[in-house]
């Protein structure tokens, strides 16, 4: 299972990459592998306000629907709309294909996230 060292993680299998005060958010390799082929994603809108650990999108595999939870609070700056027509990109490269980019509201919230080592234990 691929778990890059430079990211933060949630127990619900989302990742965060922090860059210049912004956060890119996606789903982990473990998440895409457990779900199987992702065939649909319901994306949020730009400017939506997110709260840490609350639902922000839904993804569906052939078999089931699951909610995605935002690892951080903040306003959505960009939505990766390419995923709408090509949700399988999340299977192909889950770390390259971020889902949303947000403005980080409170850096202290990062302390509530897992590092790669801690997340690896969640996946065992």
């Amino acid at each position, binding site marked *: 299972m691929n778990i890059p060292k430079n990211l933060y993680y949630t127990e619900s299998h989302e990742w965060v990459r922090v860059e210049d005060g912004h956060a890119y958010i996606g789903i982990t390799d473990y998440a895409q592998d457990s779900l*199987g*082929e992702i*065939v*649909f994603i319901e994306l949020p809108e730009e400017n939506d306000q997110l709260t840490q650990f609350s639902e922000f999108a*839904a993804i*569906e595999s*052939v*078999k*089931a*629907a699951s909610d995605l939870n935002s690892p951080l609070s903040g306003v959505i700056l960009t939505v990766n709309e390419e995923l709408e027509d090509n949700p399988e990109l999340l299977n192909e490269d889950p770390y390259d294909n971020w889902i949303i980019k947000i403005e980080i509201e409170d850096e202290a919230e990062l302390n509530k996230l897992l590092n790669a080592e801690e997340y690896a234990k969640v996946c065992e």
Partner: protein
Amino acid sequence: MKKTILYEDHLRLGAKMVEFAGYEMPIRYTSITDEHLAVRKQAGIFDVSHMGEIHVIGKEATELVNYIFTNNVNSMTANQVLYGMMCYENGGVVDDLLVYKYNDQFYLLVVNASNVDKDFEWIQKQNRFDADVINKSEDISEVALQGPLAEAMLQKATEYDLSGLTFFTFDEMPIFGYDCLVSRTGYTGEDGFEIYGDHDAIRSIFNRLLEDNPELLACGLGCRDTLRFEVALPLYGNELSADITPIEAGLNFAVSFDKNDYIGKSVLERQKRDKPKRRIVGLQLEGKGILRHGYDVYHEDTRVGVITTGYIAPSTNESVALALIDKPYDKMNQELAVEIRNKRVKVKVRSKKFYDKKYHK
């Protein structure tokens, strides 16, 4: 949790395992879509050893089976297989099953894994006949070989002439030298076989078939469900249940009124005559999304039904569903709405045959 004899083979083949009916079963080995399309275009093999097998044996075996079964056992010939249901007095379904007739005094009933104990108790409770009911489920393993190449693949493993084994018949024959019961049946809408034998026989057959046939794919329960869904075969717990009768499910072909009394007959006969108040139909989603089991269906602000199964059909890429819809909202092209995550999406009633069956007649 219980394991089938193929458990280690599933792990070796890289299966994702899930709990199903008390068994650890493969949901998929590669991807549900790839396995689905392999069955449609080539062939797939499924471990269905979790299914239940019940023998009914004795002088009045026919009478007992007829009393609990909606379809007409009297008209069966030896080596025939018949599909039907066991119903409660109120017409609700105990289970749907296949009945295999060896002779007038010997039947094999193949039932859903999740219902084996309930079914066995139910049949015993109804048994006021000179017949013995024996649960053989722990002794028998089963694989299903399905797809257009199934006959050619199985023919290489037996001397028996499979071209003569017609749809919904069975026979006993050696497969790779092991004594098996083989029926020309399945749950995919494709030609194919269901093979029953003792545990070691089935394990060898499963592995030998995969070794000998590079075009054969091991297939999990994931695509078993999408395959049966595309050809509108019902699943107990979705399209059939204690609360849904076979008439409401549109399974009139499996309900006979030309035989003596059986459990549920009077209710089903009345329901057929008066027309059921709701029935299973197909739905087509016009926009994007997926209609899932349990989602509510609306006409304006009135709830008029529920989705029983929904997928993006892997063979056609259409977002479609089976749904139990109240009359009069069940007519072709009726516009309805389905609530997905608190949002309404538009759907239209359509034929529930999302894909044409391709059986060997």
